[in-house]
């Protein structure tokens, strides 16, 4: 703790750089949200000022809610994300437990096989995935998306969770065995509650790419019934290129749920990343 590392000019310099970058990071987001509450004239005449009583207008939001079926898209995204997340966490934790708890022939090989998917993106298999979904009649169903995202999320989930499961005390598990608990009870009653924090980390890592994905909804489930909010927003924005009010409102509607969730969970997320899960 020398004083040299905390000298005043250095601190001011650090704050200046960080503040500048914070502005760069937040400016586009704030700009879009701010202007979504303005009239068309307000958007163009004074784009950089917050809405005043003179320029305030909700016309964009009324257009979006009247035109696009965003509530429905939102439900689809929610169903897909929550279901995939559930399966990734359940199956991932089970496999991680098997790999970290038991010694059996092929254990390492199995770990490597599952880790393959961390580096090789599932997208490269799209051609055959589409054929598979066509063959099984799952095109344009949310099930197809849930299956794909479950497969996509599993490798990283198994990898991270097995690291954490190795840290669960053996004494505890053996005490459970002596008391006659089955392996399943040990897993669900003893181990799962103990790794809950790392489950949250995995959940966040899995959730963001699923919610934001455009590729698979575009290819596997582009029908009106199954559109996710990302795909819906993309198509809506494509149609309303000239209606700036509607575009800005649609963008803000897409930003806000994620942003609110992020602000609530950011502490958890950052603790997850910095706890060494993905070092």
């Amino acid at each position: 703790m020398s004083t040299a590392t905390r000298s005043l000019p250095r601190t001011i310099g650090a704050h200046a750089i960080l503040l500048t970058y914070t502005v760069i990071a937040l400016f586009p987001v704030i700009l879009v949200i701010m202007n979504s509450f303005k009239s068309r004239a307000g958007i163009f005449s004074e784009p950089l000022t917050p809405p005043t009583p003179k320029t305030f207008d909700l016309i964009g939001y009324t257009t979006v809610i009247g035109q696009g079926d965003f509530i429905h898209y939102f439900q689809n995204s929610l169903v897909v994300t929550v279901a995939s997340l559930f399966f990734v966490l359940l199956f991932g934790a089970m496999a991680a437990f098997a790999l970290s708890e038991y010694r059996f022939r092929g254990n390492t090989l199995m770990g490597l096989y599952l880790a393959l998917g961390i580096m090789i993106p599932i997208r490269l298999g799209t051609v055959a995935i589409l054929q598979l979904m066509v063959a099984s009649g799952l095109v344009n169903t949310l099930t197809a998306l849930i299956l794909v995202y479950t497969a996509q999320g599993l490798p990283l989930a198994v990898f991270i969770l097995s690291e954490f499961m190795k840290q669960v005390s053996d004494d505890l598990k053996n005490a459970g065995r002596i008391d006659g608990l089955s392996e399943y009870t040990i897993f669900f009653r003893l181990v799962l509650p103990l790794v809950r924090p790392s489950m949250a980390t995995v959940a966040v890592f899995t959730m963001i790419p699923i919610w934001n994905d455009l590729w698979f909804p575009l290819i596997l489930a582009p029908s009106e019934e199954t559109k996710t909010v990302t795909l819906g927003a993309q198509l809506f924005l494509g149609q309303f290129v000239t209606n700036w009010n509607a575009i800005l409102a649609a963008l803000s509607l897409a930003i806000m749920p994620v942003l609110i969730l992020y602000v609530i969970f950011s502490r958890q997320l950052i603790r997850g990343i910095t706890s060494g899960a993905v070092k």
Partner: protein
Amino acid sequence: MAAETRPKRPFRWHIGIFLAPALLVYTAIMILPLAGTLQLSLFRNIEQHQVFVGFENFRTLFGDPNWSVNFWNALRNNVWFFIIHMLVQNPIGVMLAALLSSPRLRFAAFYRTAIFVPTILSFVIVGFAWKLILSPLWGVAPHLMDLVGLKSFFTPWLGKEQYALTALSLISVWQFIGIPMMLIYAALLSIPEEVIEAAECDGITGMSQFWKIKLPLILPSIGIISILTFVGNFNAFDLIYTAQGALAGPNYSTDILGTFLYRAFFGFQLQVGDPNMGAAIATMMFLIILGGVCVYLFLVQTRLRRYQF
């Protein structure tokens, strides 16, 4: 070994049951389709039948100018896309992380949270928001540049062939800078206090402490970030599709392998979609990514290990 000391142990069904669901989904939805795609690249649809044609599709891809020009263009663009990320995203990410990890920095949590915001947004939002900002119609970008006296430098970057790809790469950098920042930040926090104290006792502080002590210690994390960037970049699609459409305009100047694959697979305008050519392109992407991962695993990681604790 353990099994021999307890020879009569019954077959442990529960291991299989714990592993089965994950293995089943992963194998059926990820590994088999991946293998299937590689296999499809060796077939061609002739009169409604899949016929084995060996490397014909690859010969078309590299030999037929209609395909090869597009392929090399996409690959070149993709390499440039990656270079920009490596040169801009990762150094800035490391710098931000180094500043954030300085002891007793106030508002560190706020900066961290704010700088990570773009990373959680979807490509659709990012692509469109930047399209609006850079649009000459709205005039936000020229207006801002006017404030610092650079208005004459403004051009509609996304619409000009020579700038569009760089502009999109920088937008992508803007979006993903949070990831290198967080990973490096985590690595910097995990450096043992004693190492830093020892350095300070020897009078190494500030900048030289960063270059001489911390940087060598976080090299493994920089290696991981590089390979993550590589895989992510050569697999990118969404941002280009959102901002420039599947044709990756203007005049294919922002075409990367992901958009090229999409057009080949689904067809676009006059061109009919061809799953087999799509599979051939996906196979090339697979080989490129595999190559990168192997370079990382066998060359970079084995060397970096030495620096780890």
